């Protein structure tokens, strides 16, 4: 099978060369032309130098991952040619900064010299914008008319200095024409309609939170979660959303709790290391039953680990976040659209049940871009009742049949709202009485009864591929992308099962999807098969076939297909 027409372009350079921006610009160009896109970014933890690359796959089909094999390489430096030459398909275009040609004399690759630096100098453009001439050069090779390309470039560069960038695009285009290169004859999508907005997972999480009525966001910068904080810091201002970057992650979560206690729908965000710092307060949120949302984006640990690279190593850590036992909600979106929907659902669940919701993302999901048309209706229903106090003596922790107590906020006449980290009686004062302790723990855990009822309204589990296949591949999170693409290449049709709700766990649905499999394969980006452990715990189904990747790189479609084939 495979995609009908799929192309991949990589832009490589040093940190500071504008590689990431170029990747987004190219993605937007392809999306404007009507292609579906998936783009990933690979960068080391440094600010200048090193090797960065952006890789953009585009196709008329919807694609869920970028591909390793390159049709086009734009090399801003000589090193990029060496790094990526083995991934080039036969006949691939390799645009290379003309100034570095002399370093590449011994390379057995046909090169297209492009004077990006010189063009940028002539247009008085900054260094970081030089890839825009490659945008023009490749636009020429795609066979796009100059007039149309300039229109598209005006859209793509609308917020980053359109005039200057369009000049660079035109110069790149004219350079190729002057050198009499033959445009490539690929058929552009005939409909010509933009495929959607190019967006990464972090922005989609922010948009989902906003769609569910976010009023405040608190965060401390840590890769790969930072862009949600930065997006909201900018976008929040216009909407009256309070966005704070306090002194550390412990302050982040405690400040968030304070804001929720005072009545604001609040979320906070950090990477897995930041969540490690937040543990004690996650527990406080549990006992004080204050609604809270945490965006946790995983990177490769342990510790500082591989700071700018991906991992799914924290599923079990997240499920067990906080000391003591208390209900929580953990959801793991698998692509950009699910980031939107799951974030909205997480905020709604936090307020419906007065608990902590964790949105579990990872670098590959947080910082990879897809062209998406977000469907506002894709978020689940807001079933939330904000159990408002209706009079009489207010008891913040009133024992109720569904475990959810009336919620009120300080500033309400005749109401005293007492929140506490101690186990407490209904009024919120500390207790050590065994009966009170047990009753309060029972009350909190009764929330699961409602959550189990909610399974029916939400996509707790999703399936793809051949529903009749007895070869079943189960996965979670960003691995969805490579799994969906890999299924196009496996030697036999497979059924794909993605688990989104990790806590509470929809055991019956998972059992129904996995039972009957002749070959059951677990795919995860970690060393210890944490999803398989969860499935065994919740369903008693043991998965023996595992494809595990823990080199801090995401799965790629064809490599994953080959690994799945090993079990078929």
């Amino acid at each position, binding site marked *: 099978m495979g995609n009908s027409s799929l192309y991949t372009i990589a832009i490589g350079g040093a940190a500071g060369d504008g590689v990431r921006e170029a990747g987004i610009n190219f993605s937007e160009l392809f999306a404007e032309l009507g292609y579906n896109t998936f783009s990933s970014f690979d960068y080391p933890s440094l600010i200048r130098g090193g090797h960065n690359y952006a890789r953009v796959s585009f196709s008329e089909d919807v694609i869920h991952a970028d591909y390793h094999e390159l049709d086009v390489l734009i090399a801003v430096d000589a090193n990029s040619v060496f790094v990526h030459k083995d991934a080039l398909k036969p006949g691939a275009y390799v645009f290379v900064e003309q100034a570095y040609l002399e370093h590449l004399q011994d390379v057995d690759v046909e090169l297209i010299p492009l004077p990006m630096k010189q063009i940028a100098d002539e247009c008085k453009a900054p260094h970081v914008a030089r890839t825009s001439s490659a945008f023009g050069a490749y636009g020429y090779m795609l066979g796009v008319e100059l007039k149309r390309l300039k229109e598209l470039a005006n859209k793509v560069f609308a917020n980053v200095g359109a005039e200057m960038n369009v000049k660079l695009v035109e110069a790149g285009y004219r350079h190729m024409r002057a050198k009499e290169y033959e445009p490539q004859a690929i058929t552009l999508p005939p409909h010509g309609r933009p495929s959607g907005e190019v967006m990464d997972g972090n922005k989609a999480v922010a948009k989902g939170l906003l769609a569910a009525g976010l009023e405040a966001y608190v965060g401390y910068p840590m890769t790969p979660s930072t862009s949600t904080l930065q997006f909201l810091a900018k976008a929040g201002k216009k909407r009256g959303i309070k966005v704070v970057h306090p002194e550390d992650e412990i302050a982040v979560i405690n*400040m968030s709790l304070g804001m929720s*206690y005072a009545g604001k729908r609040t979320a906070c965000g950090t990477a897995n290391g930041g969540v490690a710092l937040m543990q004690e307060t996650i527990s406080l949120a549990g006992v004080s039953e204050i609604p809270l949302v945490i965006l946790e984006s995983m990177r490769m640990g342990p510790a500082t680990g591989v700071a700018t690279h991906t991992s799914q190593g924290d599923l079990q850590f997240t499920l067990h976040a906080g000391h003591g036992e208390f209900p929580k909600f953990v959801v793991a979106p698998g692509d950009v659209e699910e980031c939107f929907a799951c974030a909205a659902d997480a905020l709604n669940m936090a307020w419906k049940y007065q608990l902590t919701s964790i949105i579990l993302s990872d670098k590959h999901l947080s910082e990879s871009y897809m062209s998406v048309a977000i469907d506002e209706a894709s978020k689940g229903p807001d079933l939330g009742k904000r159990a408002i106090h209706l009079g009489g003596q207010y008891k913040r922790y009133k024992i109720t049949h569904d475990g959810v107590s009336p919620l009120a906020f300080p500033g309400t006449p005749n109401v005293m709202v007492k929140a506490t980290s101690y186990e407490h009686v209904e009024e919120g004062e500390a207790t050590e009485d065994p009966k009170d302790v047990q009753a309060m723990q029972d009350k909190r855990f009764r929330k699961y009864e409602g959550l189990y009822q909610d399974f029916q309204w939400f996509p707790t589990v999703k399936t793809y591929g051949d529903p009749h296949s007895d070869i079943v591949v189960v996965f979670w999170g960003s691995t969805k992308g490579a799994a969906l693409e890999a299924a196009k290449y496996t030697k036999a049709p497979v059924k794909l099962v993605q688990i989104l709700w990790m806590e509470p766990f929809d055991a019956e649905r998972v059992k129904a999807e996995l039972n009957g499999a002749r070959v059951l394969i677990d795919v995860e980006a970690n060393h210890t098969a944490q999803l398989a452990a969860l499935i065994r715990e919740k369903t008693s189904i043991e998965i023996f076939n595992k494809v595990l990747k823990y080199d801090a790189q995401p799965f790629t479609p064809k490599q994953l297909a080959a690994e799945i084939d090993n079990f078929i």
Partner: protein
Amino acid sequence: MAMDLTTDAKNTWCPGCPNSQILVAFRMAVEEMVKKDELELHNLVAGAGVGCHGKISDYLEVNTFNSLHGRIIPTLTGIKLANPKLQVVGFSGDGDSFSEGFNHISNAARTNSNITVFLHNNQVFALTTGQATRLTPKGFKGGTTPDGSFNEPINPAFVMLALGATFVARTYAGDIKKTKAIMQAAMRHEGFAFVDIIQPCLTFFDTRDYFKKRMYWIDEKHNAGRFDSALKVARSVSDEKVPLGIFYQVKKPTFESNFA
């Protein structure tokens, strides 16, 4: 109708503990402010950390947030930021904000968060049965320093001034009237207000006699609007004298005003 700010919770502080005097001073401060229409009771939030001081939230019939050890300060800032109408005060201990949570109180002072912090300064970890905090005098023999503590104590008022607090005062728990008045001044202050309340621990570090001999109230000649004067009096704590009073009070933009 007389205001009743007491709860049904049983007071479990040691008999005679000056924490009770702080509780009484606060209740009186609030009652007076409510009677004078300076404050609506439902708009008051009193936070506390964990330590002996933290029990105070159980004894106050107002909105309370009893946080974790060391973490009450950012919670208070969050509450104030979420709803600027609220009068947000916090009780903390020397272990709670100068050992565990120092990063938070220092940042709240620096940013001039519009909250009030009352430090129950007993110079000891009491609820864990007597160990040295970062405010304990050198040589203190406690559970973790059987041969005496090694380090010089932090002077909290001095440190808060240095970090940017816009209201800094010191009082003595046993002087309920003066403590009440200083609490009210701190609550009226717009910006980060810090009150160091000397609160001898009768069980693990009874410093009543020590302080009684050395404490004195600064007089009206002190210029609380001058940073240099405030620094001078705040740091003048010595073996001979311990000044009390409002050392510093100036108006500066608050942290929360950046979000209005």
